[in-house]
């Protein structure tokens, strides 16, 4: 298990570095932010001062070397916009997104498992048809539009929840509901497909032949086997949640990392953008490792302990299972 972890971490480090270098280079290509931060009538001298002060006139490689040197000392640079250390800003915003995304993902999984399993019990039954349609629709509504509609209906017209902010527990409802849609929609279809497959496997018959109740058959035998494909897509969905968080956090004024990233792109606040990307990428890789571990825990056959039959399961490798999933009809 430790060998597996170590290999996984080492192999993750390379993509991580590639992501950071890529963002660093791309960000520099968006142009010198001097005009954004200097007065409109700033002189050439002021521009040069600004550029030199922030090191934007060094060759890209030197800038990059300086940056990575700083990162190794946990110095992520200073935000152009606020003058605060970028690392601090990112660490402050990160928990907000983590909480939002965590609760959303948890709910999405729980609800999708319930709805997906229910639908899989009778493929083409009424529950199946309704949930299929609902899950497809849920996954295809533009999130920003849903967010504004949600505010209009539930906050303004009905007055049930605050429009936005993080002021009260009920503030969580709308952002979560909006963010929930896509992962829920996708997961319902995955769970349903996996459950249909799983429920038709011979081991379900075996369980029934032992007199296992329907609940036991579904929850213990079918679901445990269906969990693997769901877990596989969970990683990609979590990355997708960051996309959603950009939009949702902007609209609801959620002080998270999605909004911080988009703001820092708009404001060419490179230090903050890089720190945010770094932290996001690290957490995504951590998540992927957790998913691998979860995968191994769920299914002994892919457990990497047995060196004899080593079969490393990356989410990529696991992707092939996803395709074995039965279609939604």
């Amino acid at each position, binding site marked *: 298990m430790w060998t597996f972890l170590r290999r996984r971490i080492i192999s993750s480090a390379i993509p991580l570095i590639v992501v950071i270098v890529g963002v660093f280079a791309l960000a520099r*290509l*968006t142009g010198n932010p001097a005009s954004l931060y200097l007065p409109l009538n700033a002189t050439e001298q002021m521009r040069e001062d600004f550029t030199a002060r922030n090191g934007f006139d060094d060759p890209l490689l030197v800038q990059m070397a300086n940056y990575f040197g700083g990162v190794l000392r946990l110095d992520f640079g200073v935000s152009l916009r606020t003058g605060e250390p970028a690392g601090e800003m990112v660490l402050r915003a990160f928990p907000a997104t983590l909480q939002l995304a965590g609760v959303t993902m948890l709910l999405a999984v729980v609800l999708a498992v319930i709805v997906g399993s229910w639908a899989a019990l009778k493929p*083409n039954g009424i529950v199946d048809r309704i949930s299929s349609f609902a899950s497809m*629709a849920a*996954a*295809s509504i533009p999130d920003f*539009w849903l967010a504004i509609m949600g505010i209009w209906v539930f906050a303004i017209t009905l007055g049930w929840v605050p429009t936005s902010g993080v002021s009260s527990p009920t503030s969580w409802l709308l952002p979560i509901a909006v963010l929930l849609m896509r992962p829920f929609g996708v997961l319902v279809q995955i769970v349903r497909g996996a459950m249909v497959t799983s429920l038709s496997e011979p081991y379900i018959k075996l369980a029934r032949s032992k007199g296992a109740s329907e609940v036991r058959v579904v929850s213990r035998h079918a679901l445990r086997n269906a969990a693997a494909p769901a877990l596989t897509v969970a990683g990609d969905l979590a990355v*997708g949640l960051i996309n959603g968080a950009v939009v949702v956090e902007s609209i609801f004024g959620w002080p998270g990392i999605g909004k911080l990233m988009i703001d820092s792109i708009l404001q060419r606040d490179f230090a903050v953008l890089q720190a945010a990307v770094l932290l996001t*990428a690290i957490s995504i890789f951590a998540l992927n490792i957790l998913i691998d571990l979860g995968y191994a825990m769920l299914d002994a056959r892919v457990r990497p302990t047995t060196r004899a039959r080593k079969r490393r399961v990356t989410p990529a490798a696991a992707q092939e299972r996803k395709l074995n999933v039965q*279609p939604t009809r």
Partner: protein
Amino acid sequence: MSSPLANPQLPPGGRSVTPPSTEVIALPRTLDTSKPGLFHLLLKDRFATAAAIVLVLVGLTALVGPTLMGDLATQQNLSATNRPPFSLAEGWQFILGSDSLGRSMLARLVVATQTTLSVALPAVGISLVIGSLWGVWAGFHRGWRETISMRIADVIMSFPSLLLAVVVLYVFSPSAANIVLILALTRIPIYLRTARAESAELQSRTFVDAARTFGTKPAAIIRRHVIPVVLPTLLTLATLEFCYVMLAESSLSFLGIGIQPPDVSWGLMVAQGRQYLQTAWWLSLFPGLAIVITTVAANVLAAWLRIATDPAQRWRLTLKHKRKRFIARMPVKEVA
């Protein structure tokens, strides 16, 4: 003839003998003999048919709509802005109301169809072709080619695609072509992973081995034996990706770096209509509905395609629904 039991030298549990059965009664096979055409199958499924009709209509609209209504879509009338829908008072063109510049919503939706599709289809197409070929190649050869390809896929997938698009579109201006390219780039790993997995599995199969034994070149094996098998899965995936790309385009428009005015796409219409939500709801509702309906139709069709292109499952589509206590519900692996 002698009785078998009069044959004591038969070793206990020894030579097991199978009766000379020539044919196994398995439903899929028997029905496969009738080979209903794909189109014929489609007609049997009401939902899939409806979905297909929707998509064909959307496609036709995109093709001919702009020539019919292109002028109408740009014709401004500042004295008749934000007219509500479902009224013929202003003429049939305004059946879906008018927008904030007094242009016909109907005409704009029609023109937007073309823009939307001309972003979504090429983006899906490019990523499908590149991702699939790359994946098949990587999976077929395995080894370092596979490893490196999968690492690249990991890199792209581990960075939120929307943010990547935002960064890239600030570097290069947000033109339709750039949007297509960046969306295609971020979605390549999806096909790459799938194609690789399928191809890796196929390359170990007997018929591929057989072809190898005959000295067929890898490229030819891939072309003749691997791609035809992998294609249905990838096409199904592409249908789903079409939805994703449409949504991504609308999110980019919301952030102000998608399709730029005066061009118009559904996503842009939703994004721009959001500020009129309380005064002119139809500005964002209709294009939003267009996105949802098209997406759901594509989803339904993808689901259907997945079954229809799978010979082992195809027969299920011909199953008549029976309103009985246990309607046909689980796939039956075999009936024996």
